[in-house]
């Protein structure tokens, strides 16, 4: 069926797209790390870790480009130099029913640019965001391993 082939094609293509952006992500992140290491030898460890975290999200957004709503929103947030804040606390739901209805809202808070998306776009952007997030986490782990060896 055409739809089946298109879904399998969709599953293969993003991996191919991600390979090019993986290299871009790595070089951007490493360059930022180098800059941070050079310019903050005497500052606090907490400030440095904040800058590293900011650099991680920045390299994610740069390698994703402007064709994604989440990367556009993330770049906007980074450029306005606001404090990069991500909701991490688990929301406590009173009843299961309320939990079902609010899940889309919760997801909207987690994904950058979420509030201005409808359900379909939200799911699409979430999938892309998760792909880039996992790549970034794996990249940071690789850097950690190669530094401490």
């Amino acid at each position, binding site marked *: 069926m055409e*739809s089946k082939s298109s*879904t399998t094609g*969709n*599953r293969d293509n993003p991996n191919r797209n991600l390979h090019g952006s*993986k*290299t871009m992500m*790595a*070089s951007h992140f*490493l360059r930022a*790390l*180098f800059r*941070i*290491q*050079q310019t903050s030898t005497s500052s606090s*460890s*907490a400030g*440095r*870790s*904040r800058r*590293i*975290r900011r650099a*991680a*999200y920045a390299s994610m957004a740069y390698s994703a480009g402007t064709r994604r709503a989440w990367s556009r929103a993330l770049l906007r947030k980074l450029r306005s130099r606001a404090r990069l804040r*991500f*909701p*991490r606390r*688990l929301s406590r739901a009173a009843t299961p029913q309320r*939990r*079902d*209805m609010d*899940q*889309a*809202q*919760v*997801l909207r808070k*987690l*994904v950058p640019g979420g509030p201005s998306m*409808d*359900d*379909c776009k939200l*799911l*699409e952007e*979430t*999938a892309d*965001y*998760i*792909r880039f*997030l*996992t790549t*970034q*986490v794996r*990249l*940071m*782990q*690789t*850097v*950690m391993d*190669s*530094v*401490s060896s």
Partner: protein
Amino acid sequence: MSYPHAFTPRGLALRRFKPKVLSTSYIALPPSLPHHFEAGRKMSSRRSRISEEEISELVSKLQSLLPEARRRGSGRASAAKLLKETCNYIRKLNREVDDLSNRLSALMATMDSDSAEADIIRSLLRS
């Protein structure tokens, strides 16, 4: 809400979602929907037809991305459960980014510029 395509073979194939779950996902549609209805009834029905097919496709795509041992042949993929696990996974990834940046910052304190360049070259060759 009546789905004009509900009884086509494709529509029946999509029925693995509980109708209750589908209706909650429609409740979450943008509040400007009444305007869409005013703009053209044809457009709103087309929009709901596209939404249902796309939603099932995107849900299956998301399912393949989440890392968990799902029971094989579990046809009842509840969309709400999937959304909840997606939220938890994103939160977990954010926590990992925080944790890794803390550790990297601690490592940086003990690093000098020579080993930094070697680390960069090694990581670029590896990834």
